[in-house]
């Protein structure tokens, strides 16, 4: 099992909730297609795509870090995690620029149904990213401590320690996964 059972219950629960969000959105979109298409046309697809690339790169760095810690070489793990955090930060900056543009154009949560879904879905996802950044900081601290201990994780026995690392990593990958669906759903689907 890649991570603790508890984290998987949480991840799957989150995926079910977002899955329902996606389905509800497509249903209501079909009822008022014109409005949804017009509103979608004002979104900047480049922001959505760049953010997908940021999260994919970030996920890969985290996967590399986990692999490094598992093989107890660990010298590279803290560096990979710093790169992962920088990608997360990149996502955050792009998201803030995007929100700011929308607010400046007078587009808010109450403008219409499309924007309501847009703000709620991307906002909830953004919250996941911010929590995930905290998780990455935690992983980075553990990885650094492991370097000082010549590869041994500083948490309990090594199997338990690795489990905790994998749990954090799995959460971050889920954040990536949700955005992979949100991007075509909100920005691309015509």
């Amino acid at each position: 099992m890649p991570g603790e059972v508890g984290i998987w219950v949480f991840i799957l629960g989150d995926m079910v909730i977002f899955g329902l969000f996606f389905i509800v959105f497509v249903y209501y979109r079909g009822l008022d297609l014109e409005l949804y298409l017009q509103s979608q046309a004002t979104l900047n697809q480049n922001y959505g795509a760049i953010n997908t690339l940021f999260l994919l790169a970030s996920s890969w760095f985290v996967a590399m870090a986990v692999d490094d810690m598992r093989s107890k070489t660990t010298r590279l793990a803290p560096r990979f995690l710093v790169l992962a955090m920088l990608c997360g930060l990149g996502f955050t900056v792009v998201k803030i620029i995007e929100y700011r543009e929308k607010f400046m154009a007078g587009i808010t949560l109450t403008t219409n149904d499309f924007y309501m879904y847009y703000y709620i879905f991307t906002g909830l996802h953004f919250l996941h990213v911010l929590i995930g950044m905290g998780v990455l900081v935690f992983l980075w601290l553990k990885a650094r401590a492991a370097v000082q201990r010549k590869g041994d994780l500083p948490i309990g026995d090594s199997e338990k320690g690795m489990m905790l690392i994998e749990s954090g990593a799995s959460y971050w990958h889920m954040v990536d996964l949700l955005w992979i669906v949100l991007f075509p759903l909100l920005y691309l689907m015509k």
Partner: protein
Amino acid sequence: MMNLLLKPVSAAWLLLMLATCLSWWLGQDHGLSAAQTSDYRLISSGLMFIAFIKVRIVIRYFMEVRQAPLALKLVCDGWVVLVCGAILYLYWFGLSPVVSVIL
């Protein structure tokens, strides 16, 4: 370092980046979106399908579910199939066919 780059997860990542660039390009307006043409509906469905293939790659390779117990594999695949299926179904038909069967 080199052997890290040669791991399956790195190949998976490269594929994901390429798929994203393909979706990015497909999603640009190629003059097809003015009217809701059936061509464009196929492209949109393709974009969704690509997204869920990417999701499955993330689950299998990044979240390492390919090494997880069968139950977790099945639950994850079930989510992918159900959510992707429901999105595509509603995108093409809406709920009216279901409603007309029930009534």
